[in-house]
């Protein structure tokens, strides 16, 4: 019987072959194997109902295997009597379950709607993209499959993917592209979109010749593939996008949904069989961690590559927890039924708190160290074993959670800590390994991106613990985590203060500290070790700031806010939080000016010395605007549409721009971004995607000047004062339009360390 090693590329249900697997074999072949894969779900309820269900299921053909048994429920913390229904063919399970759920609304169900790849991974240990050994017969029926590596491997085997990249030559949502740029391996092709038949014939030939495993596109979900399929049908020329010729590609509609207080837009999706289609523009966090991170997320969540690439980290975490539950024999609820335990309202005040957030000391500070706990919330969940099934509602329990009067049952390790521990260890290890690599080492990017994918999963897991629809979410567990977090942060504070440090600010898992006379690195290391000893969670130095500014509230300059600050580290790099230019809707010109100004501040040991140069630079930037010398695309504002157009009572700028687009047939959905410029005309805005660039003369220059001043008054506030003060200084010289000259004997430039100032030079060059 043939046996070979390879990697699992794709896995799906099929009416004829039940479960189909596509394997990239080590010897270069692409194997299509199939197997019968029985799938189990469970039903619970009254005996009468269950007996009726039994009769109903017995009349199905093929008949599922039925058994009365017991299985562990994470919320009741005990084994429950269940009816086990084993459906002999995986592809039959979902339709059968849907009929059962409709006809038996009084019953509750478990393990009912789980991704095939998760079930497969739980049963065989083989996850998508896993290196494995397979054996099969001449009919390509799978006989056995076993993994050769774990999902948590630090350096997983490299998969010899064949990747075909397809991208239109421009953004198809703005203008119709003329050609497609295609890369297969080392070859590059350009296919003209017209004539259409020619495109199809050529593309078909490329697909057949190259036979890619992964189709990496730009706008593949929202434009390219739908366009190709439409064109293919029009000319009756089938395109082998799927490897599975019998199947049509899989479509998912576009939708807008509400998540954590925001409207999120998910474009339509086109998924393939036997191949994986990833749309760079529609893949979650692609900009953050690219292909390496996407592959990593796929491996550790055991979701198929196409699904994983398009799923939020929340879905990923949920999958990991479900996989753990399946492996442990714990019921996975179909619908979360359990509500919070009824408790006296007096307990709510202590329990219903979030992370600890301080009010920083406003102003400029020198030599400040920022120390952060490493993945605090996940570390707490793992170290203190916090999980829905480990919560004991007893104030006299042994392992009490601080403040809350509930305990943790440490005789079992919970699903959540079990799921998170390998994730946490791997992330920490990857981070450590990354710092040991040289800057030029090609593995650096790979490690960093994979660590980032893991980071996102970890960051989401706490929110998921408290999420109302999370299968293993439980509000008491969520509260326990925040209670521990507050306790540990306070212990860190006490340790630092006992060692003579002053606390400037604290925010959930980070502390900003300083010491009279400066920070000594060796002493600091000792402090970090001590804090780790007192809390059980590692804490690391984020950096030492040469100077750090905590800004006051925008509404009231006598009040502080917890997360508006910026500063320069010892190496000159900047850290910026909560400032306008960091927001997605700031025009790039203004963001660029602010970046320059921040750099100028960072270059000086005492930032106050940079102010005169900065004022000059700002004046130059304003002159450029007035003279119409700023390219229009740098003035683009990009804002999200919060709701449907007809849901607005007064139209904000973004909505007015969207209306203009409606006028030319471009419909935008809530959650999508609208790009526009501010104009002096009636509407006040000009939408960018109207196809024609706006006449520069209509740009509302005064509005942009105002935005420029506002954005920068924020960061200059400690030295210059309010927005009005800044404006006064900027226009003090009467606002002449004369070209500036580089001052020869400017006192600031002849201070101890004249900084290299590319931004000032750049601004001067521009005005020449």
């Amino acid at each position, binding site marked *: 019987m043939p046996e070979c090693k390879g990697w699992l590329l794709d896995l799906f249900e099929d009416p004829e072959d039940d479960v189909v697997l596509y394997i990239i074999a080590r010897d270069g072949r692409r194997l299509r194997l199939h197997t019968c894969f029985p799938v189990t779900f469970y039903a619970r309820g009254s005996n009468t109902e269950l007996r009726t269900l039994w009769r109903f299921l017995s009349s199905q053909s093929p008949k599922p295997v039925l058994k009365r048994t017991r299985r562990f429920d994470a919320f009741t913390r005990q084994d429950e009597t269940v009816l086990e229904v084993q459906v002999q063919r995986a592809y039959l399970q979902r339709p059968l379950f849907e009929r059962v759920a409709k006809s038996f609304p009084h019953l509750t169900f478990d393990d009912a709607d789980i991704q095939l790849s998760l079930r497969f991974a739980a049963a065989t240990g083989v996850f998508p993209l896993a290196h494995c050994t397979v054996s099969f017969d001449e009919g390509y029926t799978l006989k056995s499959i076993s993994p050769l590596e774990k999902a948590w491997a630090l350096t997983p085997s490299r998969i010899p993917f064949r990747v075909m990249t397809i991208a239109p030559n421009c953004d198809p949502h703005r203008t119709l592209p003329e050609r497609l740029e295609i890369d297969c391996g080392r070859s590059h092709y350009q296919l003209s979109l017209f004539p259409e038949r020619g495109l199809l014939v050529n593309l078909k030939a490329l697909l057949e010749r190259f036979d890619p495993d992964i189709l990496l596109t730009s706008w593949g979900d929202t434009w390219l593939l739908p366009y190709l399929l439409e064109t293919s049908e029009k000319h009756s020329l089938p395109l082998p996008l799927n490897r599975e010729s019998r199947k049509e590609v899989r479509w998912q509609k576009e939708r807008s949904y509400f998540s954590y207080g925001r409207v999120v837009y998910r474009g339509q999706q086109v998924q393939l069989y036997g191949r994986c289609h990833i749309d760079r523009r529609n893949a979650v966090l692609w900009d953050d961690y690219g292909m390496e991170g996407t592959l990593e997320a796929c491996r550790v969540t055991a979701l198929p590559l196409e699904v994983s690439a398009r799923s939020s980290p929340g879905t990923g975490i949920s999958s990991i927890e479900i996989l753990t539950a399946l492996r442990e024999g714990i019921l996975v609820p179909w619908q979360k039924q359990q509500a*919070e335990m*009824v408790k006296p*309202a007096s307990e709510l005040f202590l329990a219903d708190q979030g992370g600890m957030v301080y009010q920083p000391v406003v102003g400029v500070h020198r030599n400040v160290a920022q120390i952060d706990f490493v993945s605090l919330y996940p570390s707490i969940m793992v170290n203190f074993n916090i999980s829905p099934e480990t919560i004991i509602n007893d104030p006299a329990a042994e392992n009490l959670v601080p403040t809350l009067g509930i305990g943790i049952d440490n005789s079992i390790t919970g699903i959540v800590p079990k799921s998170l521990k390998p994730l946490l260890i791997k992330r920490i290890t990857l981070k450590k390994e990354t710092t040991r690599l040289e800057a030029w080492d090609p593995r650096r990017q790979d490690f960093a991106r994979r660590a980032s994918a893991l980071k996102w999963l970890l960051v989401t897991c706490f929110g998921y613990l408290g999420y109302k629809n999370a299968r293993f979410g439980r*509000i008491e567990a969520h509260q326990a985590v925040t209670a521990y977090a507050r306790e540990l942060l306070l212990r860190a504070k006490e340790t630092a203060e006992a060692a003579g440090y002053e606390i400037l600010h604290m925010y959930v898992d980070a502390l900003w500290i300083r010491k009279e006379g400066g920070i000594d690195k060796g002493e600091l290391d000792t402090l970090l070790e001590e804090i780790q000893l007192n809390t059980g969670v590692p804490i690391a130095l984020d950096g030492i700031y040469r100077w750090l500014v905590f800004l006051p509230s925008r509404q009231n300059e006598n009040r502080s806010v917890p997360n508006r600050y910026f500063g320069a580290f010892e190496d000159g790099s900047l850290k910026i939080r909560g400032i306008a230019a960091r927001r997605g809707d700031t025009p790039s010109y203004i963001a660029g000016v602010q970046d320059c100004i921040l750099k100028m501040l960072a270059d000086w040991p005492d930032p106050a010395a940079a102010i005169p140069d900065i004022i000059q630079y700002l004046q130059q930037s304003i002159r450029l605007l007035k003279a119409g010398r700023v390219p229009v695309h740098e003035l683009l504002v990009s804002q999200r549409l919060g709701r449907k157009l007809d849901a607005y009572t007064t139209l904000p700028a973004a909505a007015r721009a969207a209306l203009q687009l409606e006028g030319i047939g471009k419909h935008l959905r809530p959650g999508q971004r609208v790009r526009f410029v501010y104009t002096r005309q009636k509407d006040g805005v000009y939408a960018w995607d109207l196809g024609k660039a706006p006449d520069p003369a209509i740009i509302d220059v005064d509005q942009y000047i105002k935005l420029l001043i506002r954005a920068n008054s924020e960061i200059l506030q400690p030295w210059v004062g309010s927005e009005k003060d800044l404006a006064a200084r900027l226009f003090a010289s009467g606002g002449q339009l004369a070209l500036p000259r580089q001052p020869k004997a400017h006192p600031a430039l002849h201070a101890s360390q004249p900084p290299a100032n590319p931004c000032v030079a750049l601004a001067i060059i521009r005005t020449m």
Partner: protein
Amino acid sequence: MINSYQIVPEAGKISLLVAPSITRPLLLEATAQLALKDSVTILDGGNSFDGYGLARLLRSKTTDLQAALHNVLLSRIFSCYQMKTMLEAYDDTSRPLIVLDMLSTFLDENVRLETRKYLFSVCHTHLQRISRAAPVLVWVRKRSSPLADDSIFVEKLMQDAEKLWQLESPSSPAVQPALFGDA
């Protein structure tokens, strides 16, 4: 805050309050009265429970704030499935029950309407069961822009409610309180 209306659930009936959020002070007052008299259970279906507001109100009526707060039992419900499970298992007839923003969880479009209707009817049946032994007050939040499915559920509740208040603001009713099922 002018508060000329008193909402008081009575034993043996489902009392229904259909009113916008702005009338929450009335509910707070009702909760406070019940907490001071004996105790009360609150099922919060829309994350509307105003803890600090209740504390302030109770403080103006009693010196033993902690004891009064201890008499208010609370559970927060985040989905229609949870509402059904909670009401199904609810067997505490020793104290009144207030359900806040009853329908919020039933407006979840992610759950099929058929399923929501079914779950709602189960909840309704159990509310009737509970109301026979203890006073039950249900608050339905009247929205300024009502959602499509809203009316289906509200009408069902209104049909069966034995005591109904429909308010627009804390002090002036749109409809005089009526005792349904009155001879």
